[in-house]
């Protein structure tokens, strides 16, 4: 086939590069959603760990009080 004129070839070239860009953007978006989910879970766990640590600090005092009684 003879070479396509620039106006016609431009559509195909743009199409190929846009497809590549879209694929990369979709992949990065999926990974970003994944990282956000990890961050959210990490926040929850940090909160849980803090609550538990506070509980651990309070508990020995009660044990001591109980032992005195």
């Amino acid at each position, binding site marked *: 086939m003879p070479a396509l004129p620039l106006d016609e070839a431009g559509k195909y070239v743009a199409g190929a590069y846009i497809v590549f860009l879209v694929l990369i953007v979709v992949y990065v978006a999926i990974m970003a959603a994944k990282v956000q989910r990890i961050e959210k879970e990490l926040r929850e*766990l940090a909160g849980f760990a803090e609550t*538990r640590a506070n509980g651990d600090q309070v508990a020995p005092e*009660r044990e001591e009080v109980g032992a005195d009684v």
Partner: protein
Amino acid sequence: MYGKGLRSLSIATVAALAVSLSLVFFYAPLDADQGFVQKIFYLHVPLAIVALIGFVVGGVFAILHLRSGDSRWDAYSYVSIHMSVIFGVAVLITGSIWAKASWGHWWVWDEPTLVSFLIVFLMYATYYPFRYAIEDRERQARYASVFAITAGAFVPLNFMAVRMAESLVHPRTFATANGGLPGEMMFTFLVSFAAIGLLWVTLVKFELTAKSASGQLKRLRRALDAPGPGSTSRVAPEVS
């Protein structure tokens, strides 16, 4: 651990892609035969080569996994194959667009280069159902490694077979017998190849970092869910 150097790698990748695109559209000369549509070459061919190398790299990591039993290598192998499958999708789509522009058809079934790449791609597409059909994590990793090694060995064999086969329409660009690329085109191609290679490495590292963070999170959740040795005596009375 996996995230170390990811930021500088990402910056290098974006810079390399920008340089590569500038060279493709402002430096590389127009092809005498195909004209402007040949610009797809600088995207399609590096993607294909990087995808195929990635499949082989996945196989090498799988060998390391089977030799050492270290699950880290299995993760490397899985992510390498995963990224190469994504690049494979890009190769097939950009190739089809180029084929339509150059040959007037989206796909040519009697062309060995096209069909062989499709076979390799479809073979690796079965990696996921094969891997996740096995529930036991150790067995899953072991079987997936065997698959990755076998398929990885098939890739260069397949490549050589295609190079030896009679080509109908797909060009043999790097064949020395019929001339190669002119210097400016070759330079642009090499920069594009480096940029796409860097992109592959960056995305593999990115996914490994996310996977590692997810794994650490699961470990943390398990550790927090399980009652600690000292905590049972102190926390349990409070609950009751």
